């Protein structure tokens, strides 16, 4: 099923609005509606409250104690010797990673702790760079962080951690581009955006393939959805640059525009007909709206006030068409993709 909202009305969350609609449809009479509204407003039972308070107080308490500890360390930071600083960060990183391993990496608390350890690796590298003034470029720091973190990320088999790791890769590429290649490239950003598009697209494809093969920890589709949205999003830069100023656009930027239109077409085809997914369709539609809206924006300089009005009305019309199409696609996708 493609839709994020259940088809069977009995499986939908019983909100007051839905219950009133059910009454309007005749499924509930007035007395039944009143009873149903009272039913859903009953506070959860004592057992649920105990679980909730247990989790809430643990999570909030741990976060506050951890934050307070960090604040305390920050207060005393200037007075610490370099070995003390390095040792402190290393000890904290090792402690959380060990704690995660002891809790078990097949459980979420263990995975979260190991994730904290991954973050701690970055902290260690930052402190090391600060203390020893190695002269390393920032991109090298992030690259080393990504390399050192990879075994832990692979061991955790935790979707959020993989997203964090891809974020490290992105940061490495962006910083490396700025340091190494930017002075050489005629269109500084477009090749970088295309590279990031390739990275995100590949990652999304691999994740989808893994999920398709039944790898359990890859079960959530949200990772590939976010990666697909990111892949489309980075191409907005060269595409909109080309549309807004086609005479000044370079070959790389035209490539970015073509890549975006091609990616949008592919996403619309695949996730409408082959593997229905409304989120990815929405991301593709949003990209199309951005490009189409940019076309008359380039004329604004000549049209001024009237131009803003027309572009504003055009945008309203585009969004209305987009939302209507998405709703109809969602309705039909749930009925077997017809």
């Amino acid at each position: 099923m493609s839709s994020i909202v259940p088809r069977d009305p009995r499986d939908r969350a019983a909100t007051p609005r839905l219950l009133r609609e059910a009454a309007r449809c005749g499924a509930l009479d007035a007395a039944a509606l009143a009873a149903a509204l009272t039913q859903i407003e009953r506070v959860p039972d004592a057992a649920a409250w105990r679980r909730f308070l247990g989790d809430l107080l643990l999570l909030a308490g741990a976060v506050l104690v951890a934050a307070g500890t960090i604040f305390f360390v920050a207060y005393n930071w200037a007075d610490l010797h370099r070995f003390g600083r390095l040792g402190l960060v290393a000890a904290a990183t090792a402690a959380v990673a060990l704690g995660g391993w002891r809790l078990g990496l097949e459980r979420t608390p263990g995975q979260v702790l190991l994730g904290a350890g991954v973050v701690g690796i970055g902290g260690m590298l930052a402190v090391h760079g600060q203390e020893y003034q190695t002269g390393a470029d920032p991109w090298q720091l992030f690259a080393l962080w990504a390399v050192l973190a990879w075994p832990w990320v692979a061991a955790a088999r935790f979707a959020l951690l993989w997203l964090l790791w891809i974020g490290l890769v992105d940061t490495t590429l962006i910083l490396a581009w700025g340091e190494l290649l930017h002075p050489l490239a005629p269109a500084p950003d477009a090749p970088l955006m295309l590279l990031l598009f390739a990275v995100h697209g590949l990652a999304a494809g691999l994740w989808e393939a893994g999920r398709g093969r039944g790898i359990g920890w890859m079960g959530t589709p949200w990772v590939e959805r976010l990666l697909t949205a990111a892949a489309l999003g980075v191409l907005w830069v060269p595409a909109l640059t080309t549309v807004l100023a086609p005479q000044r656009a370079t070959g790389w930027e035209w490539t970015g525009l073509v890549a975006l239109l091609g990616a949008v077409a592919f996403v619309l085809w695949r996730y409408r007909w082959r593997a229905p997914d409304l989120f990815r369709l929405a991301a593709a539609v949003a990209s199309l709206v951005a490009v189409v809206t940019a076309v008359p924006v380039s004329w604004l300089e000549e049209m001024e006030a009237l131009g803003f009005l027309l572009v504003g009305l055009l945008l309203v019309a585009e969004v209305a068409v987009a939302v209507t199409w998405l709703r109809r696609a969602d309705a039909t996708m749930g009925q077997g993709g017809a």
Partner: protein
Amino acid sequence: MTRQRGPLVGLLPPVPTVGEVLVRLAASGELGEAGGIADERLLHRLPAPTMPWFVRLLAGFGAWVAALLITLSLALGELITTEKGQTITGLVLVAVTVGLRHTAPRRSEFLDQLTLALCLAGQLLAIFGVGQVADSTIVAALVTVVLEALLAVVYPDQVQRFVSGLAGGLALGVLLDELEQPGLLEAWSADLTVLLLAGAAATAWWLPEPPEAGWLGGDRRAVGYGLIGALTLSLMPLLGLGEGAGAVATVGLAVAVAWLGGAVLLRLRRRPGAGSFAGVVMGTALLAVATFPVPGILAALGFALLGFAVRDRLLVVVSLLFLAVFTSWFYYDLELTLLAKSGILVASGLVLLGLRAGVLRRGDDR
């Protein structure tokens, strides 16, 4: 009970499905006692599910950008040459769009988006126009509060109702700040703003849902989320005010959280023991002392409790996110030293962990 998956599942309140509610009603005999009738076969007549959040986000974002462009076109054009003209144009736009939403013979996405964009543009024009005509922040803030309160009732749209809560709440804070009298506690207006916004937002969730949708069309929570947005933006500056800032708000929020705890106890059991009430009061008092005078932590925990009580998962998540954001923001508070801030956080964290031990032990004893 509805299936729950994923981490920390206890944090998310169980939300029953329509089918589960009907089964429970039938099993409990409530339908019989109330004389009610439920016919599941007619459920297929229910309208299609509402749009997923990301589609609503697309629609809302498009409306905002369109409103900005339309406002720019009116500002750049020579149709409006005076501030009075700007104000009148804005109010006319608002009135026309409200009328269109109520009287349009057939709803469509295009009309919904257009009217929302024009209504937003009209509000911007009217508020800025009034501010310039009166040359008074107090007047502009007052007009904003009144206009947004009216629109929250008469404009049937979740995005607009969220905007009404947010803009109206922020304007209330500005109004109280401008009305502050010399000689009183310098930061009383900021504390009062926090308490009023927190109270109004909590009311949006706590009042029982009537059978009829009422003035707000069943979108009270949209207004509530807007008010929480305003509350978040009001709590942050509180950290940078002078001595005494936050004290009244902390005490007020502690009282509110204790009241909420007591109300939940009463709903859970017909005759809760004095020990249970005492536990709630003591726990809240301890937390208030530990976090005094920083009200953000109590606010976050209070709304998380409220969200669980009324089974609103989004409110629970938003509250926890707010706690994380507030803690980060707290780092930059210049009124307290890092050591003092560290002490507040560690103390409050230990209080929470101690309360947890008490809750679990009490559960084991039973």
